[in-house]
């Protein structure tokens, strides 16, 4: 798959629109899912997805092949999402700011049957963007922490820190929601 993507990028760089269509079909859903998870606005995510692939079309010739094509494309989506959030005035530029802690204390490990997806969506929303992006790339896209670091343009250590906090807060939030559902 990776080799296929690289071949497609080479073709796109030479002006091959069918290769762009093929790459779009291969990556459209995961990239869109990632953008929606960051922006929480399907309409805006549509536009950003479009811009991402326009950028792929324009800059395929500058792809150096040092990373996976998927990582490169997600990096474009990551930066474009940040631009949107900056315009909205809701991006956190440091790792200092706290996430919105949804609920209660104990870290426990159960996700009861039913409503899991709704709980997870809600709890992801409570995370601040850097944390949400890291956990989303890890769990939606199954990326390594090295790949997540490339997408976000930060050192691997930073990704590990973000994942650590994101995981703790996510599980705490889920625990709180599950307990309230049961109560």
């Amino acid at each position, binding site marked *: 798959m990776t080799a296929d993507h690289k071949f497609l990028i080479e073709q796109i760089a030479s*002006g091959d*629109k*069918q290769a*762009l*269509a*093929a790459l*779009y*079909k291969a990556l*459209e*859903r995961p990239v*869109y*899912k990632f953008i*929606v998870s960051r922006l929480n606005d*399907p*309409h805006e995510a*549509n536009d950003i*997805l*479009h811009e991402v*692939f*326009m950028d792929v*079309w*324009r800059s395929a010739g500058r792809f150096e092949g040092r990373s996976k094509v998927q990582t490169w494309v997600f990096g474009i989506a990551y930066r474009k999402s940040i631009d949107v959030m900056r315009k909205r005035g809701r991006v956190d530029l440091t790792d200092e700011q706290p996430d919105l802690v949804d609920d209660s204390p104990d870290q426990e*490990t*159960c*996700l009861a049957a039913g409503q*899991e*997806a709704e709980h*997870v*969506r809600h709890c992801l929303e409570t995370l601040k963007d850097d944390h949400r992006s890291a*956990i*989303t790339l*890890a*769990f*939606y896209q*199954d*990326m*390594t*922490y090295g790949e997540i670091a490339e997408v976000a343009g930060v050192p691997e250590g930073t990704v*590990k820190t973000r*994942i*650590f906090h994101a*995981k703790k807060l*996510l*599980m705490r939030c*889920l625990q709180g929601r599950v307990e309230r559902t049961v109560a």
Partner: protein
Amino acid sequence: MTRDDFENLLVFKANGTLEGEELAALEAALASDAELRAELYALEAIRDTMQSDPVQSPGELGLARLMRDVENETRVTEAPAAANDNVVPITRLRFWQAAAAVVLAVGIGFNLTDFGPGASVETSVAFEDRIAEPAGFGLASGGSSDFTVAFAPDATEAEIRGLLLDAGVEIVSGPSALGLYGLALLDMDAERSARDILASSGIIDDLQ
């Protein structure tokens, strides 16, 4: 490694990307630590839930929009540079807009099946050939829009295609910045029935 390190690696054990020494060290820790195992189980459940959460992506409509704009951009790039090329005459803008509408209509109105789930690269080649073709296709409607619509955000490509066929219309322009599409009648005598079909559809948010 510290316990925090192991806890951190659990996420990457859960998504299957951990390997080498880190994987070996974590597996050794998991063998002797029930809390770590429980946390791994929870993380795997969260990952499974996230992965199975459906998403309604733009799909074929997004691809048609992309191809339209790429084609547009390509033509602009390939156009010979004029001495005063930072000023674009209105007539040329109209030409590009019309060209974009034709490309969109060809992609959506007539050949949408080429982009179904099973469509191959070869079918994309055919699509591409048609886009590149300077002549040889045209809009059955003549190209001017009779209705302006906004599709519901959760409308699928198949639903939209079905509605267009039922109503006897084709997309001739759009999406605009507001997400509006221009539709034109294939049969000018069928305006009333087409309007009724569009108005009663559950996937049209706005009809003008």
